[in-house]
């Protein structure tokens, strides 16, 4: 899928340097201070995300997937290793990064359009300008008919779409997603995957997608990184290639390659499990 990533780079992100990765985590380790002493959450993990590339991070609970995203977004400083964003060593939060979690963090007192427009408001965009951009985004996400609705009036899937819109409205150069569809039922999850896929096709964004769902990771990604064990170490970093039309997620899921990838990833993930 290298060509696809290259093609996507050409389509979008004009500010993205042609050479070099958008995000480069090199030998990153993260430690937490707990009552029992220093606890290592992630040990010596390296992940590189090229322009326009969609990279999934999979692994069992507690392997430090989310921690890695916290490092990438700048909330946590790694104990060891180097984080480079757009070729520059990166310290702290960056406004061009979009971050979505499974948790609903919409503001209950703002309606759909104002929730989507919130990051623009924080960047100082004028009311009518930001509403116009947000309305367009809402249209793309199929939320055009409920711009005036408050989050409490929306279903879980719609709320997650609003969150996605709020993240994409700033045209992020890097999209970090932490189990964004984890709280949705199987059907809605598939619909959201299709939606995400089609949006990224129009506006390619380098993406790191954390999930515990192997199928979701394989179907959506250019590359899947598997973490294993606790603390999490790099188990496998493999490019996903498939003969199927990558925009047809159901077709992709029914290919033999899909099953092969799934088996391989499952072996890696479950290999380092401690016996109970």
């Amino acid at each position, binding site marked *: 899928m290298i060509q696809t990533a290259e093609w996507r780079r050409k389509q979008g992100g004009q500010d993205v340097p042609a050479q070099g990765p958008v995000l480069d985590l090199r030998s990153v380790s993260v430690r937490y201070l707990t009552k029992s002493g220093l606890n290592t959450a992630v040990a010596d993990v390296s992940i590189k995300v090229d322009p326009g590339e969609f990279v999934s991070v999979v692994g069992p609970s507690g392997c430090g997937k989310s921690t890695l995203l916290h490092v990438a*977004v700048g*909330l946590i400083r790694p104990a060891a290793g180097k984080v480079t964003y757009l070729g520059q060593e990166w310290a702290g*939060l960056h*406004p061009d*990064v979009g*971050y979505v*979690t499974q*948790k609903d*963090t919409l*503001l*209950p*007192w*703002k*309606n759909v359009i104002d929730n989507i427009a*919130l*990051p623009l408001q*924080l*960047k100082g965009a004028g009311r009518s300008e930001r509403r116009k951009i947000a309305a367009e985004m809402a249209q793309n996400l199929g939320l055009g008919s409920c711009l005036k609705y*408050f*989050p*409490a*009036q929306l279903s879980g899937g719609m709320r997650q779409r609003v969150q996605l819109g*709020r993240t994409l409205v*700033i045209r992020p150069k890097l999209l970090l997603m932490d189990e964004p569809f984890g709280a949705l039922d199987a059907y809605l999850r598939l619909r959201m995957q299709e939606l995400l896929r089609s949006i990224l096709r129009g506006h390619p964004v380098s993406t790191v997608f954390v999930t515990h769902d192997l199928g979701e990771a394989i179907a959506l990604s250019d590359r899947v990184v598997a973490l294993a064990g606790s603390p999490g170490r790099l188990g496998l970093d493999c490019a996903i290639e498939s003969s199927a039309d990558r925009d047809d997620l159901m077709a992709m899921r029914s290919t033999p390659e899909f099953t092969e990838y799934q088996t391989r990833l499952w072996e890696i993930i479950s290999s380092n499990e401690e016996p109970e």
Partner: protein
Amino acid sequence: MTQEVTIAGEAAGPAPLDAQAALRMLGRRKTQRRALVWLLRLVILAAVLVSWQLTSGHLFPSFIMSSTSQVWDRLTNWLSNGYILNNLGVTLQETFIGFLGGTVIGAAAGILIGLSKFASDVLSPFINALYAIPKIMLGPLFVVWFGIDLTMKATLAGLFVVFIVFYNIWTGVQEVDKDLVEMYRIMGGGRWAIVRGIYLPSAMSWLFNSLRLAFPVALIGATVGEFVASSEGLGYVATNAATQADTAGVFVAVIVVTVVAVAMDQLIVQVQRLVNVRLGKTDGGRLVI
């Protein structure tokens, strides 16, 4: 429009209902139920008033119990000569000044102190101690400080209110969803943007929750102030009537204060509903309107 619906259990009925008719029937049932509720309420009220009237002077002496008719006579008499309205005006003035002052001071202090974890930690034992003081006991002290005029009563009312509002907002600010704050930071929101975007709107809902408790308490503060020392206001009307063994007069004062408290409570509830809509709050999945 002509879509037909069948209702479970009525399948054996003569004909399926159309949706319009079913809606009309539901509407009728709702109206009937509401009418029955109001009818029963009136029956209970009437029963209390009638039994009060009948037992007075028989089961209990009427100079202790008074009676429905005596209270009614006193009420209409005092209403017509303006005695009640003048004194009600005085009490309301004290109450509202205390209510507004206490709300503003309590809300501002609650947000400011709540925003700082350190300040909250340092001040919490003092806040808890002040909260625990039976504030009524400060009445005599306030007479020394402020005299016996409006200032004393409004201050007493305000003191009652300030703690309720402060405590609600102070605890609320500390319980603001930290994920929301983190999300704001990631989107590039600074400290002031976080206060304005998350803390102030959240504070609005805690504020309205506390206002419903605060108004009756402000009314208590004002009337207690009048008990302590005054020559006007409903508290004075009650104490003055009591010293003359005029129980009907005391009842009139109590009734008028109650009516004011209920009316104000309803007003706050209505405003709260409007605010809830603005805040996108729901009640069991539906937007509270």
